[in-house]
């Protein structure tokens, strides 16, 4: 059941690669809006932008630039992760085609010389799971980044000079700043760990292809020896 579901999903790698690309392009468009916010914010002199009151265009621009830089990297990496997953799926399709090809060739052999299809290696069952793990980490990172975005938006929607810089020890504002600074390195860790899982999945899939080709070569040699004998 699970095997069939994975095989059916593997074949849809082209759909996944385009889905990933769409996410990366949406992230690109969001970066353009962050660039606009940066332009607005830095068009005012330092004293003006830091003393701007909550609700003014400068504070809104600052909220936008801080918010986008909080969650968009996680979104962008999810897009790239889906594309890497599509590469893994394409490799999985190659493995399946090689196996079917081997079965097709062996079906033309005489029964007494046909050793039968070898059992699927454990690594072949492992790489879809590694890929899924990578996706889960990237999705979890995105969900965490989105929840942090609320805190970031709330923190930066205050005036820098009259509220943020004057925040007292133990205040809600400093707690929000602390939470943001605590979470950002974790989000980066999640992104990199997710990507590491996806690259590992690709490597394992490549190892399965190599092993399949080696096994086919050995089977062929045995067949030819038996045939000539």
């Amino acid at each position, binding site marked *: 059941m699970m095997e069939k579901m994975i095989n059916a999903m593997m074949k849809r790698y082209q759909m996944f690669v385009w889905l990933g690309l769409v996410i990366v392009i949406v992230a690109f468009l969001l970066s353009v809006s962050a660039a606009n916010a940066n332009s607005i914010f830095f068009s005012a*002199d330092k004293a003006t932008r830091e003393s701007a009151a909550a609700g003014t265009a400068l504070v809104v621009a600052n909220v936008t630039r801080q918010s986008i830089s909080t969650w968009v990297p996680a979104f962008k990496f999810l897009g790239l992760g889906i594309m890497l997953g599509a590469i893994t799926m394409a490799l999985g399709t190659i493995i399946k085609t090689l196996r079917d090809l081997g079965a097709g060739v062996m079906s033309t052999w005489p029964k007494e010389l046909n050793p039968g299809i070898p059992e699927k290696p454990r690594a072949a069952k492992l790489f879809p799971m590694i890929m899924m793990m990578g996706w889960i980490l990237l999705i979890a990172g995105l969900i965490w980044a989105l929840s942090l975005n609320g805190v970031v938006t709330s923190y930066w929607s205050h005036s820098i000079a009259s509220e943020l810089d004057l925040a007292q020890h133990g205040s809600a504002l400093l707690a929000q700043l602390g939470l943001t600074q605590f979470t950002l390195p974790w989000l980066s860790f999640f992104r990199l760990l997710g990507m590491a899982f996806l690259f590992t999945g690709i490597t394992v899939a490549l190892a399965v292809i190599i092993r399949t080709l080696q096994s086919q070569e050995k089977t062929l040699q045995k067949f030819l020896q038996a045939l000539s004998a």
Partner: protein
Amino acid sequence: MEKMIQSMMKRFPVFIAMGFMIVMAAVVIGAVNAGSAASYYAVDKATRDASIDLAQVRSNIESIIVWLPYFKFLGLAMILAGITMALGVISLRLQELGKRVMSSVPEAARLALPPKPLSATLMRMFMMLGMLIIIAGFIVSLSVASTASWVYSHPVVEIDAAVAGSDLLAGLARVHAAEAWLEAFKFVGVASFFLGIVYGLRTIVFALDYQRTAIPQVVAKLPAATRSPEKASVLAAN
């Protein structure tokens, strides 16, 4: 044109080596820049904010921070291009192998070879597109780096005192705006390479799938007398 592309594809190790050298050069430049940054921040804030000489040091640091990541991605792009080319070479070899095997079987048993799939063209197209996006990003980053170099060649106190509408503030806004959208160039470029790799793999799947269906058909068409061990080995090796 086709021949030129094919001969270029075969040079994939050169691209990978060049990419690796660029990444290594970027690591060295980054390490030197980190050293400059360490000595810059070793000076107390009041001195470094007011000093014109230290502003020159910061100008170099900020300029390198702008263009170096795009240079590094140019190296990564060359490595990814090398991988895509290697996939192109694999599908090319599979195609040649198919032609050779088909020419070795009796004419009556031969099957027509399929035309080159669209995925092979798409693979090259997305690889080229990715390369163009990354190169464009690198060129734009050089221009932004020159603005950053000019902005930060002024002492920090002067930058902080810049009034709205001044060239200095406009330059600062350009640098900060560019760092937001320019970053996306890297990711869209890499995404295009991934798309190229997927289509490269799709081409290999296409070739293997054809072989999977063609081999039993060819074997079935072969007269029993021609199914010698030598012929069988050629067929089976395919």
